[in-house]
């Protein structure tokens, strides 16, 4: 394998090496939650292995995005990796050892510093040759300007310029016409994948996969309902990130459905036995943005110092509907709707502010939320222009609201201490905790 290819896999290999001992510890002494966590770690490792094998053996694989229905990719039996994965995986594991060095290198790229760091980092990974170059690329073009702006820059890189690319174009509205239009984009995406990978779509297999993901979604809905319990059964990091990992890293496998089943069973038992993972819960939070990469420095502090649990967060709360598999058309429309309405970030940031308002209303009521934290990631310009409406919604509901203003990838923007300080002052002023 040439040097370039080897370098493009280096971060995956490092991550695997970092995860392996963790996995062994989890397996040796799983405790009550260890098996659930081990599954997630194994999932990441096995996905990395598949991509490494594709690069080494010259087999076709895709780079994709969390908005492109994983059901389609699974049914077409084409491996993929989710190219913002490195940043997110780092968030779930307490930060990558490269974070600071990567951020400093990113600064030197020359993209204006007010542009979203998540995507500037991604651009850095590309420029630094740290992303495996796929056979074809399924781009992400919503929900924000950053992804659209990044995309043009991304495809201008000499090594990626010739990579065939398909950009499913996302409409702004939420109606039957929009879902049909997007279903058309998905069908065009299938033709594109077939053309560039030689893989074909088998509708029966797609139905099978969707039926399986439907089971996962149904269980996730059940799980979300269980988090309404006071005290809430689980801490935040593992289960809610798990939803993200499982939905982006794979679909349609009965083992994943089983993971959800186990998660639900554990939560049910904890609720029944009044045995929450986080004892002494005093504050129930809604965290309305994506999780920062350094969340592992915040969540334990919230829980231990303040008894504050994140009962629900923006990424995990989507109005999941099961996809109707009765006809091909219904299935595509359902997948289109799932991609536009249920995907984290897409659900909240694409389209009008209505989803944000109704999410806050429903979550605050259903989850008995004591306060809403709007982290205000610097890349989310639409959210900055939504914050006032969110504040107003909280005021109507009579629930305290805090806007922080941070960079989810870069602690240099607002440090963890500053964030903690803002949260502490807020809790104190609102007489929470």
């Amino acid at each position, binding site marked *: 394998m040439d040097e370039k290819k080897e370098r493009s896999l280096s971060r995956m290999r490092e991550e695997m090496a970092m995860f392996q001992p963790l996995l062994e510890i989890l397996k040796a002494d799983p405790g009550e939650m260890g098996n659930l966590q081990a599954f997630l770690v194994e999932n990441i490792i096995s996905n990395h292995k598949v991509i490494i094998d594709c690069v080494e053996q010259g087999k076709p694989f895709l780079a994709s995005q969390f908005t492109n229905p994983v059901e389609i990719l699974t049914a077409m039996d084409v491996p993929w990796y989710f190219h913002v994965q490195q940043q997110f995986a780092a968030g779930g594991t307490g930060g990558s050892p490269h974070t600071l060095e990567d951020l400093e290198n990113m600064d030197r790229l020359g993209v204006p510093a*007010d542009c979203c760091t998540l995507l500037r980092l991604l651009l850095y990974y590309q420029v630094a040759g740290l992303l495996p170059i796929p056979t074809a690329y399924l781009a992400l073009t919503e929900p924000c300007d950053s992804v659209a702006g990044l995309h043009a820059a991304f495809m201008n890189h000499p090594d990626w310029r010739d990579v065939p690319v398909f*950009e499913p*174009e996302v409409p702004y509205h939420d109606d039957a016409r929009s879902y049909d239009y997007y279903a058309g984009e998905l069908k065009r995406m299938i033709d594109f994948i077939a053309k560039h990978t030689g893989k074909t779509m088998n509708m029966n297999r797609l139905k099978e996969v969707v039926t399986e993901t439907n089971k996962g979604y149904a269980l996730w809905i059940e799980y979300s309902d269980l988090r309404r319990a006071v005290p809430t059964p689980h801490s935040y990091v593992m289960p809610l990130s798990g939803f993200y990992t499982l939905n982006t890293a794979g679909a349609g496998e009965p083992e994943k459905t089983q993971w959800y089943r186990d998660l639900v069973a554990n939560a049910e038992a904890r609720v029944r036995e009044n045995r929450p993972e986080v004892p002494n819960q005093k504050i129930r939070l809604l965290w309305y943005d994506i999780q920062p990469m350094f969340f592992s420095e915040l969540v334990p502090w919230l829980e231990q110092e303040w008894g504050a649990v994140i009962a629900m967060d923006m990424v995990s709360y989507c109005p999941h509907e099961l996809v109707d598999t009765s006809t091909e058309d219904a299935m595509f429309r359902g997948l289109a709707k799932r991609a536009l309405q249920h995907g984290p970030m897409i659900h909240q940031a694409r389209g009008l502010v209505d989803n944000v308002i109704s999410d806050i209303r429903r979550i605050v009521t259903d989850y008995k939320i004591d306060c809403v934290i709007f982290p205000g990631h610097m890349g989310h310009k639409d959210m900055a222009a*939504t914050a006032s409406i969110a504040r107003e919604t909280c005021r109507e509901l009579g629930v305290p609201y805090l806007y922080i203003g941070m960079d989810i990838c870069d602690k240099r923007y607002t440090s963890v201490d500053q964030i903690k300080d803002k949260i502490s002052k807020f809790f104190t002023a609102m007489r929470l905790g």
Partner: protein
Amino acid sequence: MQTNVRSTALQAFSEAAQTIVSPEVQKWKNQGGKIMGYFCAAMPVEMITAAGFLPFRVRATGSTGTELSDAYFGNINCSFPRHAFNMALRGEYDFLDGVVIFNSCDHIRRIYDHWIRQMKTPFVKILSLPRKDGPAQVEWFRDELAILREHMQEHFRVEITYDKLREAIALHNASRHRQRDLYELRKTDRPPITGTEMLAVTVAGTAMPPIRYNQLLGELLEDVGKASGHSDYRARLMIVGGELDNPEFIRVIEGQGGLVVTDALCFGSRLIWRDVDQSVSDPLTALAQYYVADRPSCARMYTRYEQRVEYIKKMIRDFNVDGVVYVRLTFCELWGFEQYSLVNDFKQSNIPLLCMDREYTLTGVGQLRTRIQAFLETLGDKHG
């Protein structure tokens, strides 16, 4: 740089560009005419004209603050929508009978959410403008326009017939044609019209009844024909970016001796460089095709970066440009990533490029002057 053009038409254009409610707008309103506001260069103004209304592109000309809109937008939002919405909240856009907004960018699209909550404008619509330019996107946008047409007909009780649309297309194409004639004159060694004046002309085109505008353009072309050309410049510059509607910004640049001979701006050449195809039988399809695919694209159209670079490079050749000034409104992600790509590409092509962030209102003039001067130094005195 002094003007070489004696023209009442030019004065009318400058006046329209320097104000919101210009005498032309006021006259239209006094005569009972309806005015439809819009925010994006991709708005098919022909639809508004065909309804018998005046299309008015929302600006924040003359804005001095964001004291009211700060309650709705954050400090990481682009200053253009913040100033524009501030003016709306102050009642300065109360003369609009309707507003059409697109999902142009993350900042502008939120104006819709706030406008429907805070303003009393009777007709407010948001359209989904694709970011890709394939046949499916043209078809989608055609449907968007058909829906807008229905809504306008119903709400305002007007008829927007296909014939009226064809007439409007011809009218706006005629404007573009004359505007291009003016650009054409700037290709010469001694351009008779400055960049400051040209921007006032194109901005005025978004704030005047098109028939009147075309008449004034005709007069201006005649007047410009009589004017002597500018030769007292140090370098020929091109301005590239998104939203820039303030001729005074260009005046500062030209004051340092850099004559702006062309641009790729949303209030500039991108508005006029191509025509809507009048041979297409369905006018809505013609409009959708033009606004989604045929007109020079802006940074939100993510599949068309290469064409944008080609467009700029062709301009550089045709207008004999010495250097490019790239201006971006702070917090604009679209033009931020575009900047990164252009810096790399221009370096390879040896195109001198100066990148500048700016606020919507003209601030930091001293710094602007210094940076332009320094840039001009690097270009050398090619024409002096």
